[in-house]
């Protein structure tokens, strides 16, 4: 009888252990999904006192040629710095609204900000590539500056930024098009944007071993006919120059803050090493953050990611301080 009672108690205890394990496991999952490691540091509680949003302003004939302008509520200053943030999405998806929190955050710091949509490469629009997208951005920015002025915000300098595909386009604008910008481009900041297109770097796609596939993919990205025999030649560099920020780096390149994940399989980490080396060789003031445990989402190195964001603010204070 006593042994039977003891056995029941042990059974109950094991059952309790299993139930508690399941509850704790689910708790761990929920915690990981909802926990904000930044504790809201880079977000702002958006109210009319912070700023105002002008949505879907057109800069071209296409439905995709739209931008959102975020302005601070204080419009009393003589001039403002503009931060353009370009959205991610692998050149095939994404929207300017994806970066609303980022755009609002920099408005709270005193900047005018803009998110610009560009025409994506889709099954219905296969003719759009990085070059056409970069040209749309180039076309949009003077219109963004003019619109801001219409709303009472005189823009006298700018910073361009973005993530992934948006990072790629931001780098292209900053390095290739800055000379033609309507206002001086003071700096660029971006995360995980591809800046070069050398097959040996793109190992995760097998392009280091398959020249035909590399030629096809890079032809799509550039909108130019690239063949296998061109790799490693000057002709190839000339063909990709329009979409490769790396090839525009020189001593006049604007200050740059960038972050990359060491385990990125969507765009190669190796490309960012090339960019860092080129910026160093050219003597460009830049900060290069390597997130050792992260992939394309920069998802596993919170402290380093915060350092990146804090450095962006340091650079903004240095190169484009709020008046």
């Amino acid at each position, binding site marked *: 009888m006593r042994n039977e009672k003891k056995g029941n*108690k042990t059974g109950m205890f094991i059952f309790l252990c299993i139930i*508690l394990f399941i509850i*704790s496991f689910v708790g761990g999952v929920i915690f990981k999904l909802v926990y904000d490691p930044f504790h809201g540091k880079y977000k702002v509680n958006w109210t009319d006192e912070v700023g105002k949003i002008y949505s879907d302003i057109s800069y071209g004939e296409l439905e995709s040629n739209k931008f959102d302008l975020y302005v601070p509520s204080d419009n009393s200053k003589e001039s403002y710095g503009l931060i353009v943030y370009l959205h991610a999405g692998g050149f095939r998806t994404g929207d300017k609204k994806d970066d609303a929190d980022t755009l609002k955050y920099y408005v709270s710091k005193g900047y005018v900000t803009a998110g610009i949509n560009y025409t994506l490469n889709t099954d219905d629009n296969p003719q759009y590539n990085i070059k056409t997208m970069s040209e749309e951005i180039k076309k949009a920015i003077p219109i963004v500056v003019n619109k801001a002025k219409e709303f009472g915000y005189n823009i006298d300098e700018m910073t361009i930024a973005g993530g992934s595909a948006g990072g790629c386009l931001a780098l292209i604008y900053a390095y290739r098009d800055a000379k033609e910008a309507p206002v001086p481009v003071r700096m660029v900041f971006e995360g995980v944007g591809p800046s070069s297109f050398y097959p040996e770097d793109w190992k995760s796609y097998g392009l280091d071993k398959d020249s035909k596939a590399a030629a096809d993919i890079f032809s799509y990205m550039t909108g130019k006919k690239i063949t296998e025999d061109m790799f490693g030649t000057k002709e190839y560099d000339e063909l990709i120059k329009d979409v490769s920020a790396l090839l525009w780096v020189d001593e006049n390149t604007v200050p740059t803050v960038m972050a990359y994940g060491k385990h990125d399989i969507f765009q190669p980490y190796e490309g960012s090493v090339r960019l860092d080396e080129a910026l160093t060789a050219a003597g460009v003031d830049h900060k290069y953050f390597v997130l050792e445990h*992260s*992939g394309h989402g920069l998802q596993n190195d919170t402290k380093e990611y915060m350092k990146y964001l804090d450095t962006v603010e340091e650079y903004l204070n240095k190169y484009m301080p709020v008046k």
Partner: protein
Amino acid sequence: MFTKKRVAILGIVVLVGFYLGALATRAIINLMIGGTLFGGNFL
């Protein structure tokens, strides 16, 4: 039923369960395009 030893075991079970839940989620997120799904602001 709740001896000190069993309370300690329950505590360990809770901690291990919580840790494994968080770890499993991290692993799944790492598989999902390196955390770029859901805007990349998942963690």
